């Protein structure tokens, strides 16, 4: 204890559970590290722009105050916000930005870049150039942290152990211990000083986080707890703020491999599943209901305005249709086995062993398929599930699909050109959906900046998706934000927030923190 106030007019400390918290922290705040780092990198370093996932992923200015397209959508010129300072007092310059962006461009080991060139424009702007029209790719910049060139020119970005990070964010490193990292609020932050003097990241695990929340030692976390009982234990103070981040929990169907390469089987399974029941089970620990998903695979919470109204309602369970679909494809079910042409087509459901939630979903889907279609599905759990999924060695799998980064990005996950063959790893489109018409629509979307056109094309793609059933969307989901108002108030409303409260995203967390005020009394 005994920490002197850094900024006058601010009070106290907010305790935040570190996102994906490790039980002990690593004393390394290198933003380029490919492995575990200390918590809070994302409130120390900031990107040029951010997206508002509460509003369909619309881009919002951050360190860049505005941008303009030229060159047929190949070049974006971003104008930097004036008055931004690093925590060591140096102002942000275009040179820093160019250095930050160039680092990734020149150093594929750091994750690579989609743009092809960066250069400074005047004293307050940078131009980023792509090889082709990139209206839909500007969002890639929001993952790139802007660092101070002067400090980094002599560092090896991959291996440098940074114990004293310097960024433009509202908080700066103050004290490190393996169980707690304390950051001090900056008075000279461009977005205004936060209301709290300190932010303390507290190490916690899923096993004890709920207890820590209940005994008021944590003020905010994005974590998986029994939120229903948490809220019930003190409805006044205990808040559950779902951050609908565009994700949709779905059953992945391996489109690259029999039997799910056959659209009849995909349709049959989709019709056989009762998404409402699954959504209900999934929300049994939440104080609110996660809505059953739209058959388009887009989150109804994030993309309400983008989804074709006729697809806003979830797909109804329709056993007759499911059976008809199987029959149409020439399939029979004998003794629990799916057969075609006298050959048995075994079906396995791969689920990662360390995610009990997914495991439960899998069990429920299996149970429903058994009840409706009479097909036995083998559940195979294991630690290698994600490898198997990436390599296409599965029939059914479950995960959070889609994203809140805009309709293009969300649909682009099923882009056939990103699909890799069975056996080789896919980082995208791991359901291996290939549909020429769908891909064509996506290509058109990439080349337009016109929101209306985008929406129209999106609906075309949705129709194909619903018809072809590359996955079975189950329900819309998000990151569960849990707050305690004993010390801090001003949290976004649980219903229709303007922004998401989520420790996982820096810009969202900063936005949240800047809205907070000390609780009275």
């Amino acid at each position, binding site marked *: 204890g005994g920490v002197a106030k850094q900024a006058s007019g601010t009070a106290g400390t907010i305790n935040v559970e570190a996102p994906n918290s490790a039980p002990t922290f690593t004393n390394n705040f290198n933003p380029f590290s490919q492995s575990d780092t200390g918590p809070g990198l994302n409130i120390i370093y900031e990107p040029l722009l951010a997206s508002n996932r509460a509003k369909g992923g619309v881009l919002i200015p951050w360190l860049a105050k505005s941008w303009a397209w030229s060159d047929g959508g190949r070049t974006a010129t971003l104008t930097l916000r004036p008055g931004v300072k690093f925590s060591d007092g140096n102002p942000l310059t275009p040179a820093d930005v160019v250095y930050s962006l160039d680092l990734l461009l020149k150093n594929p080991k750091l994750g690579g870049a989609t743009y092809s060139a960066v250069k400074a424009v005047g004293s307050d702007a940078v131009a980023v150039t792509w090889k082709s029209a990139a209206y839909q790719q500007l969002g890639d910049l929001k993952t790139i942290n802007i660092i101070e060139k002067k400090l980094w020119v002599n560092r090896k970005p991959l291996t440098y152990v940074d114990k004293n990070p310097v960024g433009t964010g509202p908080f700066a490193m103050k004290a490190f211990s393996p169980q707690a990292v304390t950051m001090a609020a900056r008075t000279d932050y461009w977005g205004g000083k936060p209301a709290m003097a300190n932010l303390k990241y507290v190490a916690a695990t*899923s*096993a004890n986080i*709920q*207890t820590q929340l*209940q005994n008021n030692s944590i003020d905010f976390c994005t974590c998986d*707890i*029994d939120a229903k*009982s948490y809220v019930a234990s003190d409805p006044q103070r205990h808040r559950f703020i779902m951050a609908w981040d565009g994700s949709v929990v779905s059953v992945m169907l391996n489109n690259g491999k029999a039997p799910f390469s056959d659209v009849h089987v995909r349709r049959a399974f989709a019709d056989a599943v009762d998404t409402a*029941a699954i959504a*209900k*089970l999934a929300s*049994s*620990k939440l104080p609110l209901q996660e809505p059953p998903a739209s058959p388009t695979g887009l989150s109804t919470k994030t993309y309400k305005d983008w989804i074709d109204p006729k697809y806003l309602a979830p797909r109804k369970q329709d056993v007759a249709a499911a059976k008809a679909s199987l029959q149409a494809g020439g399939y029979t079910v004998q003794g629990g086995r799916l057969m075609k042409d006298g050959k048995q087509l075994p079906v396995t459901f791969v*689920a990662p*062993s*360390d995610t*009990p939630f997914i*495991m*439960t979903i899998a*069990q*429920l889907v299996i*149970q429903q398929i058994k009840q409706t279609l009479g097909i036995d599905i083998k*559940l*195979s*759990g*294991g*630690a*290698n599930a994600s490898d198997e999924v990436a390599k296409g060695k599965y029939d059914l799998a479950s995960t959070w699909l889609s994203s809140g980064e805009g309709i293009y990005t969300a649909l682009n996950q099923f882009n056939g050109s990103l699909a890799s063959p069975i056996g080789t790893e896919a980082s995208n489109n791991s359901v291996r959906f290939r549909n020429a018409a769908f891909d064509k629509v996506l290509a058109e979307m990439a080349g337009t900046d016109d929101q209306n056109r985008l929406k129209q094309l999106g609906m075309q793609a949705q129709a194909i998706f619903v018809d072809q059933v590359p996955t079975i969307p189950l329900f819309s989901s998000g990151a569960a934000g849990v707050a305690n108002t004993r010390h801090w108030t001003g949290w976004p409303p649980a219903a229709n927030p303007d922004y998401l409260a989520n420790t996982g995203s820096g810009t969202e967390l900063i936005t949240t923190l800047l809205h907070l005020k000390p609780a009275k009394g």
Partner: protein
Amino acid sequence: MTHQLLHQSATALDLNSVSAPPSSKHLLGTTANGQDVLAQLVSGTRESMLAGLVASVLGTSIAVVVGVTAGLAGGIVDSALTGLTNVFLTMPGFALIFVISGYTRGGGPVVIGIIIGLFGWAGGTRALRAQAMSLRSREFVLAMRMLGESRWRLAMVEVLPHLIGWISAMFLGGFVGGVLAEAGLAFLGVSDPSTISWGIMISQAQQGNALISGMWWWFAPPGLCIALLGASVALVNFGVDEISNPRLRNANRSLVKRAQQASRAKEVSHAR
């Protein structure tokens, strides 16, 4: 088995009663996912026992082979096997098993049992070796050897029957050890969650915040089952110990009580 007995499956999800306390429909209540705890407990018994059994059979077999061979063979074979045993004995067994199963990344109860057995046999080997060694130089073995009995027959017919007590005690100990180790590993996440064992139940209950949510019926039964199993084996061991060590029989409660009464009566009569 489970199906017919309880009309419940361990994995079936009852969406209408999630996190339900014990009732006539679900005798031990349901988990947060609406799975019947009793059904899980029953099928968990099977898997836990299977892991324990595999571990114990394998461990005991290795221990018997190594221990008896070392004890009977003597010489350099003995030295080598004893060295091997001591190596396994001094290494932190659970950590080793955990690391190994960390590499193999889980697996079903059989795999876990095999790993536990493979790396946890050393415990009883020393005792077996010592026994076999003392038996080897017992006069009855010498006498049978002088009749011209083959070594094999000496080992199997003359020596092994004397080790049955030790072996069965070891087997029991290994069994409980196996169940406990499996539970520990499951708690650490080294398991196949599509199967249900007691350890997996505890681990799921913990992940499901069972205690904090007041769902004692989910958390308590598997732990109690393990404790019960352990306790019963411990009690068997009490008996085994008394058989193998006759001096312990003097500590028999009823005898001590009678003796106290008798001597008290004597004192009283004397005082008069």
